[in-house]
């Protein structure tokens, strides 16, 4: 499989980079109160290598989602810089940027517009970007449905007529239609049953090889992360406490917090005849 070629140390090409990114939210204040600053990201520097799966782990409030929103350009850093292919993100036009970095969100029930058909949902990024004729858009939607193993008749279906797994495949199709370089997946399988999760994970990994994608994969499930990630970044309180190759991190976690996370993770014991 070609995906083996893409993993490991061969990758050195940096597709996206954060340099000392900070994001501060001002909380409270009200009429008389004293506002205080919440440092959601507190000096994060991170490089995304072309073709890799970089997993971002950490608990609620650690800053994972703020980081993903900054990568997606949905939010600007308070200070620090973000680069896409070496160019400062601030210098790239919004629509051009969106076509190159696409999201897949956690909840396929709330992230799809319930009043639009599958075809309309999937082609939306192309409509927004403009410059692609309707016939070509439809051709690409069909091609993606086929790759994602969804029947043609789904084209005119609505999200309410679909299962969670099918909805997430629609969300993936929508993310891929503009042929992005980077897909930011924020807990993409957390809302799914395990059997469906397996199919979606396998699919994401096959698509990576087929489309040459780079993933930033946010998850709280360490077994999922170990299964698919090339590298893992561990966040705590707005800081990256450890970034390492996945095999290294799981075999010998360096930071105390990483060790605690690993110790708390509950997974199914390995199958063995009569334990």
């Amino acid at each position, binding site marked *: 499989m070609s*995906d083996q070629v893409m993993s490991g140390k061969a990758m050195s090409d940096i597709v996206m980079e954060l340099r000392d990114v900070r994001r501060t939210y001002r909380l409270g204040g009200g009429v008389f109160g004293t506002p205080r600053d919440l440092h959601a990201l507190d000096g994060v520097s991170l490089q995304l290598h072309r073709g890799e799966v970089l997993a971002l782990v950490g608990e609620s409030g650690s800053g994972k989602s703020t980081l993903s929103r900054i990568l997606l350009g949905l939010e600007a850093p308070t200070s620090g810089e973000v680069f896409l292919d070496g160019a400062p993100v601030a210098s790239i036009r919004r629509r051009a940027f969106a076509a190159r970095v696409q999201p897949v969100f956690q909840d396929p029930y709330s992230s799809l517009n319930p009043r639009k058909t599958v075809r309309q949902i999937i082609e939306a990024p192309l409509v927004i970007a403009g410059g692609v004729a309707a016939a070509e858009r439809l051709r690409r939607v069909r091609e993606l449905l086929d790759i994602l193993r969804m029947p043609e008749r789904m084209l005119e279906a609505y999200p309410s007529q*679909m299962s969670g797994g099918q909805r997430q495949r629609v969300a993936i199709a929508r993310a891929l239609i503009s042929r992005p370089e980077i897909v930011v997946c924020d807990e993409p399988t957390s809302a799914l*049953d*395990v*059997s469906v999760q397996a199919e979606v994970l*396998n699919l994401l990994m096959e698509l990576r090889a087929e489309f040459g994608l780079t993933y930033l994969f946010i998850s709280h499930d360490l077994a999922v992360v*170990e299964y698919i990630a090339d590298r893992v970044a561990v966040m705590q309180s707005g800081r990256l406490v450890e970034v390492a190759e996945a095999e290294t991190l799981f075999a010998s976690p360096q930071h105390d917090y990483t060790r605690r996370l690993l110790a*708390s*993770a*509950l997974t199914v014991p390995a199958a063995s005849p009569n334990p």
Partner: protein
Amino acid sequence: MSVLSVRNLKVTIPTHGEPLQAVRGVDIKVGAGETLGIVGESGCGKSVTSMAIMRLLPERISVKADEMRLGDTDLLALSERRMADIRGDRMAMIFQEPMTALNPVLTIGRQMTETWTRHRGGGKREARERALDLLDRVGIPHPRERLGVYPHQLSGGLRQRVMIAMALLCDPDLIIADEPTTALDVTVQAQILDLLASLQQERGLAMIFISHDIGVVARIAGRVQVMYGGRTVDSGPVGELLGAPKHPYTRALLSSVPRRGMRWGRDTLGAIRWSDDTPEASS
């Protein structure tokens, strides 16, 4: 003797068309000091089963069983009023999201003391002492101050501890926990599971622990029932069932869960086919 004994439970939900048989003949037995895990995917009937046992389903939903007993009380024969006496007293439930299960406009102290006086009568002081004692036992720091706070002022982990304290308030014989740690971070989840296990041992509780997460169930349950399509398709001691699964569905389910040490490209996650996941033929 079993604390809870359910035989041939059937739950039917009326729909516009054919009634939906959500539970199709499930047996459950849990003894004192025992934890029964119920696992299965969305729609398998695990939550409906627990709601049926607590008799918390709306009236239009039909619940039938050959037997449904808590100790020597026949739960099927009880009036709603008698059932309300038992709920929160002899049997209690812990839900996934404490924010929706707790009353947002009452303080923690008020909710706990009301539950106690509702079931046990007695004065406010006694109820308050009891509440303090339990908040302390479930590991809530500064319990005296917490009595005066509202649910939204607590973190998710603390709220779930409050739920557990409330469930234990009247020393129930049976606790049903439905995905009690699903909304929590992993480190908090581990603490809550340890807490539940130690309280259960200490008090000789019978516990039903419902989860979609097989790793969690493996940690806390002694015996496990696997549900699919409203039926129990497999059951047994946790070590046997998960270590050497015999039933094809259990095997398929287990093979779809990533385990520590598995890597894409080297190990394969078995996906259960999508054939059952085509959309309803809706107009």
